[in-house]
């Protein structure tokens, strides 16, 4: 598999993955392009690995974490709750947008674990490899992230009892 073949095959999935990690389409494009340019330079080594796809995802996760570190060590990690409309189908969409805003406000590692588990449908061992942490830490991180989301979602329900959830 050549570099070009790999990008043709997996580029779209990598960009989508990066969109969820970063929460920003433009930054996701930049992130994936930066990482793939580096992958090009060492493609022989990457392609010789058992799972080039996981290798590259690992680079994307690390690059995103580094970006957050550089950006600010004092970043507020919790998104402010926003007003939600009430009603029918529009509320479902608004709720999902609201949920997304809460996900986007999670610490970067917690968000990465949720994306890998629920969007990429990876098991804890694969997530552990990508995140360079243990499978136990993956489970702990996911639990904390879900607990935080449930708590904030519940607070929203109390604040806006007309919600449909």
């Amino acid at each position: 598999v050549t570099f070009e073949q790999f990008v043709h095959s997996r580029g779209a999935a990598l960009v989508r993955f990066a969109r969820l990690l970063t929460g920003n389409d433009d930054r996701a494009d930049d992130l994936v392009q930066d990482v793939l340019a580096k992958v090009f330079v060492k493609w022989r080594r990457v392609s010789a690995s058992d799972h080039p796809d996981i290798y590259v995802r690992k680079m994307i996760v690390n690059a995103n974490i580094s970006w957050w570190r550089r950006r600010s060590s004092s970043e507020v990690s919790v998104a402010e709750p926003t007003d939600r409309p009430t009603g029918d189908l529009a509320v479902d969409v608004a709720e999902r947008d609201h949920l997304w805003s809460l996900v986007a406000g999670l610490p970067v590692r917690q968000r990465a674990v949720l994306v890998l588990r629920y969007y990429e449908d990876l098991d804890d061992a694969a997530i552990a490899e990508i995140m360079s942490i243990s499978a136990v830490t993956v489970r702990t991180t996911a639990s904390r992230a879900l607990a935080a989301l449930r708590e904030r979602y519940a607070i929203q329900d109390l604040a806006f009892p007309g919600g449909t959830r």
Partner: protein
Amino acid sequence: MNDQLERELLDTFDRRAGAPVDSSTLALVTAERGRRLRTRVYAVRAVSGLVALAVLGAAGVLGVRAVRPGALPAGGPPSSTPGAGDEGPPPGGWKVPGLPIARGVPGAEQSPEKVGTDAGVLHFTVDGMTGSRAVTWSSRAGSESIFDGAWEVTLARTTAPLDALRNWRTAGTGDPYVTGAVPPNKPQPEPDRLTPSSVGGKPATIYSWESPDAGNGTFYLRWQPVAGLWAQVFGSRGVGVPDDAIAVAERVRLDTAYRCASQVRLPHLPDGAKLQQCEVTLAGAELSNLMGDPTRLSHSLLLVGDGPNVIRLDVQHLTSGSGSRTDETEIELGGRKAYKFPNHLDQPVVEVRGLNGLNLVFEGSGAYDYEELEPVAAAVTVTGDGRDPSTWPDRIIG
């Protein structure tokens, strides 16, 4: 999935990530950035080496025992690609050479039924694409395409290949190149807005994604230039507006056929094998090949085989990546050195490095193993002036 929150998470992720992605442009852009990055890496290493030599020289004068500094890494010399690897166009602008005319072969206008039937031929062209950084021509069973990095124009006898190409471009699904198992990509939502239009007085339709999460500036235009033939102009994200796609469509010419040419010729194939796909990318400025000679051949891809048994040959003016593999075996094929190793899917790979300045990677799938790859790689030839496609072999097979 355990509870409602987790189900909503999955739904949210699918929706937020779902906008189309242009894999072709991503491959082009990242390969170019990678080449520039590698040039810088080599330059830094070379300077470091010189500094080290100077220091060691001084140390020698001082009577300190010298240690030989490391050589440049394997994988070829640094890219000195004027043009395609740089930020801007060369003096005088980009100018991509054209493919040779296929003598005696009618264009799509005269014979629409021939489109997508011969992987060695394209039955059309698009005026005005030569002023691009690079242009890729490709022909395969069912469709023929020309892509200039922004617009991809495709002809097909039915809409099915156009749908497949669209899905591949926007979602990475149905990849026409990759053989072997790769993880499935997420499905792409169908375009949700259809706008009537016209091309050369013929009815056309612009398809776009209007949903804020899925649109992302991607759209395509379809029409029937002649009876029995469909055409599609696909606009990459951010390249323009639908009116620009119509302007591209107006420049499609169906009166002449062209050969999908490469510097490579394959005199030997496994029994029953034939050319299944040809793709060639020519640069708008001179590149340097592995020997430092000027060339316009950026990349070409040839698929030869018999049904599901396929040999994929990547022809590259540079190698992607540096460093030697630990699992490769050096062999001799046709009196020259070659290397064999398995790829990550455990498929056989034979690589011929630096044949007349080009890197050739043969990859087997289906029933093809090293036994089938090696005679093909042993017989391969590279001829002609890399800057001039008219000097390249007049046939790829045989």
